[in-house]
């Protein structure tokens, strides 16, 4: 039986064709992976299949029965037994697990909400598939892996037997990925169907029975049986993938950034950074490896001045900047590529030219008038040097692709006069391969020019390619350090993964 079938689906966003005549068949009782690069159209395709988005052409069949695009919706999919676990969890933080799962299908006793029945059913369901869950826990207190399991429970509780997961392993540690795959295998053994949207090829190889490869909105390959990472990767990109950057060994100089016993509080007052001390010297790249949510964001915010610190010190080239405002740190040599480029890196409504001088307006003119010619020249230079497309200084930042938006931020931050410390948070997240290569080259170039670089990234492969030293962060503390030689070992990934989970050697 075909659990899910799409015939000739086309979906356009304005002039862009996100899906071009895509046909896809998922057999019941299998794990089917849909892979592709960022922007290949796989998420869009699944959103269309699920009813989140409406296709412009094509036919959709859920468990053998056709659904008309006009009447399709997530509620309709669930009714037919198809559920989706989103990449960005649709969970309500301050509410409990039971409340989140029950929402929309609330059990009642008379007029009263009956959460106890829901809680019991949840416990049974979770036990059946081998994980435990506390129905009265609040979502915001759970780890990301646990939250994902709640998302899965949400759809299971509604009786679905086809499960679509959108980039489920993006925020999980290697061990949590293993747990998840264990659950998925149990689901399939119980007769369910799993559709996995991902770009993580090694995981695909481990769990999938069939793989559909998409590139630029089209299906380019279908593979079954014994799967080969190389073959899939080549099909995805169209050329062999290099995650290597040419770099000479580092020759670090004096300390640029120095943290002493830093303590920072996160959202809702909980301790996020506990007693962290380390140094970054000129001419080296230090990376922080850690699962999202272990204090790295707060650490970066404290260093860059956006978040106040509770204790300890931050020093830039010997000068204490622990309580200095952001602009003073910039003048002290700090440049920052924020991890959320759309919220913190750019003013989306501003033009490219205006974004390029954000926070740097004093370099162009007097307090009584901006030197527009200077601003324009600055934009032309940046567009040329960093290959920003479209090459239009007046285009609003909102109109640029993710990769080009990132290039604008990188251009602005890397050209700050007197830069001595470059802090980057997830610099290549959501960026296409060509831009990734350019950004990596620029980061190494900055290092070679004598800057100290602090890199926070969730992509272990990026860390391995760029870092001279790695600090592993878990629950606000640095739990492990790897230097260049240790990084080069094959066991480095496993070692970092263990540290990220708090497992001590």
């Amino acid at each position: 039986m075909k659990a899910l079938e799409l015939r000739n689906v086309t979906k356009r966003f304005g002039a862009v064709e996100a899906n071009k005549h895509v046909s896809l068949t998922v057999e019941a009782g299998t794990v089917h992976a849909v892979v592709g690069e960022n922007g290949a159209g796989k998420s869009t395709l699944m959103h269309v299949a699920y009813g989140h988005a409406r296709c412009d052409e094509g036919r959709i069949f859920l468990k053998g029965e056709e659904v008309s695009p006009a009447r399709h919706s997530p509620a309709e999919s669930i009714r037919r037994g198809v559920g989706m676990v989103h990449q960005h969890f649709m969970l309500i933080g301050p509410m409990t697990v039971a409340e989140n799962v029950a929402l929309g299908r609330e059990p009642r006793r008379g007029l009263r909400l009956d959460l106890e029945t829901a809680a019991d059913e949840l416990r049974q369901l979770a036990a059946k598939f081998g994980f435990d869950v506390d129905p009265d826990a609040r979502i915001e207190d759970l780890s990301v892996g646990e939250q994902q399991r709640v998302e899965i429970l949400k759809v299971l509780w509604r009786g679905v037997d086809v499960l679509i997961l959108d980039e489920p392993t993006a925020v999980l540690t290697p061990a949590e990925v293993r747990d998840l795959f264990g659950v998925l295998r149990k689901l399939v053994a119980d007769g369910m169907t799993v559709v996995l949207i991902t770009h993580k090829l090694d995981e695909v190889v481990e769990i999938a029975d069939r793989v559909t490869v998409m590139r630029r909105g089209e299906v380019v390959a279908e593979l079954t049986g014994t799967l080969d990472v190389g073959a899939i990767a080549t099909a995805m990109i169209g050329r062999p993938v290099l995650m290597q950057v040419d770099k000479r060994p580092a020759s670090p100089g004096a300390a640029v950034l120095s943290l002493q016993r830093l303590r920072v509080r996160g959202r809702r007052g909980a301790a996020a950074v506990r007693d962290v001390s380390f140094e970054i010297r000129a001419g080296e790249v230090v990376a922080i490896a850690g699962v999202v949510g272990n204090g790295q964001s707060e650490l970066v915010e404290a260093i860059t001045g956006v978040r106040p610190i509770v204790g300890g010190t931050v020093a830039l080239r010997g000068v204490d900047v622990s309580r200095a405002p952001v602009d003073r740190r910039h003048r002290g040599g700090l440049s920052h590529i924020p991890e959320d480029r759309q919220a913190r890196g750019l003013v989306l409504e501003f033009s490219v030219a205006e974004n390029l001088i954000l926070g740097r307006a004093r370099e162009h003119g007097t307090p009584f008038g901006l030197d527009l010619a200077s601003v324009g020249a600055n934009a032309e230079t940046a567009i040329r040097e960093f290959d920003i497309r479209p090459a239009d200084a007046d285009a609003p930042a909102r109109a640029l692709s993710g990769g080009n938006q990132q290039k604008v931020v990188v251009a602005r931050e890397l050209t700050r006069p007197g830069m001595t410390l470059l802090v980057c948070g997830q610099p290549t997240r959501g960026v296409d391969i060509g831009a990734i290569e350019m950004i990596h080259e620029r980061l190494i170039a900055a290092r070679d020019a004598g800057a100290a670089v602090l890199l926070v990234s969730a992509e272990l492969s990026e860390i391995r390619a760029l870092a001279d030293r790695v600090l592993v962060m878990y629950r606000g503390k640095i739990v492990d350090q790897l230097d260049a030689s240790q990084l080069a070992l094959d066991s480095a990934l496993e070692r970092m993964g263990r540290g990220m989970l708090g497992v001590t050697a």
Partner: protein
Amino acid sequence: MKREAYIVVVALLVAMAAGSVLILAFGQSPAQVYGMLMAHTWGDSYGLGQVLFKATPLVFTGLAVALAFRVGLFNIGVEGQMMVGAFATALVGASLPDGTPWVIAIVLAIGAGAVAGGALGAIPGYLRARFGAHEVINTIMLNFIAGALVLWAGRTWFFVEESTHTQTVIESARIPSLGMSGSAANLSCFLALIAAAGVWYFFERTRRGHEWRAVGESPLAAETAGIRIGRSITWAMAASGALAGAVGANFVLGYKHYFEEGIGRGMGFMGIAVALVGRNHPVGIVGAALLFGTLSQGGFAVNELVPKELVDVLQAVIILAVAATSAEVRRLATR
């Protein structure tokens, strides 16, 4: 630009329809009422003068609201800021020595108004910057508080015996009238135009304006880039209050020559409508100010047929219609 014009036209039509319903309820003919409204405003010299007189403070208060809005703030306190500003203008204008050269007198008097309004505006700005207290309620509260304080100060010290107004300002502090058949229009309408041009220049061509716009569009990005949010918010609210406070030029220096209880009532709130209909752009604001000035004067003209509160209703409906239409247009454009 075309989109903005579309929004305003739709809003006006909706308002006219709503107004017609009310006019009919009162037993009058909409055509007659609207016709009379136009005839007594743009149709004769006195009416036109009154329109200019009423539009001038609206440009100031509209600019005040728009300036705050562009920095991401809602200044609903223009009414109170306007009042303390006019009060300060009147007091300073009356206490200057008689022979003061007119340039100094007028600059000092208007300056006092701007400072007073700016100080009042800075309070909610500071409270927002330091405590995160939302300025909407604080500015509204200050309207009540400022009103009470001004009245008390006037009754206790500054009002002339047995009256509700202050002493008249000295000769050299008076702004000449424009004539126009005895209307209240005076040269301060040119000040309004200068203010509009100044605000445009500030936002589009200066560094500070660029920074404030960033704070308004995306405070997180501005903060990360090193722009000081707290400082920007406080100064922006102060600047907004100062613009509102400068209104004293029109009423006090240019017309009555003293501050009177109830002066300029409603001009502050109408400034919100002007900013919205003018789409927060100085050119639009001047246009919207003329529109609302017309409505305001027209209300008096048709008062024998229909209560002048009709105009207040029209104004509120216009605000709602513009807000609704602009949101709808934005939604359809980004779908």
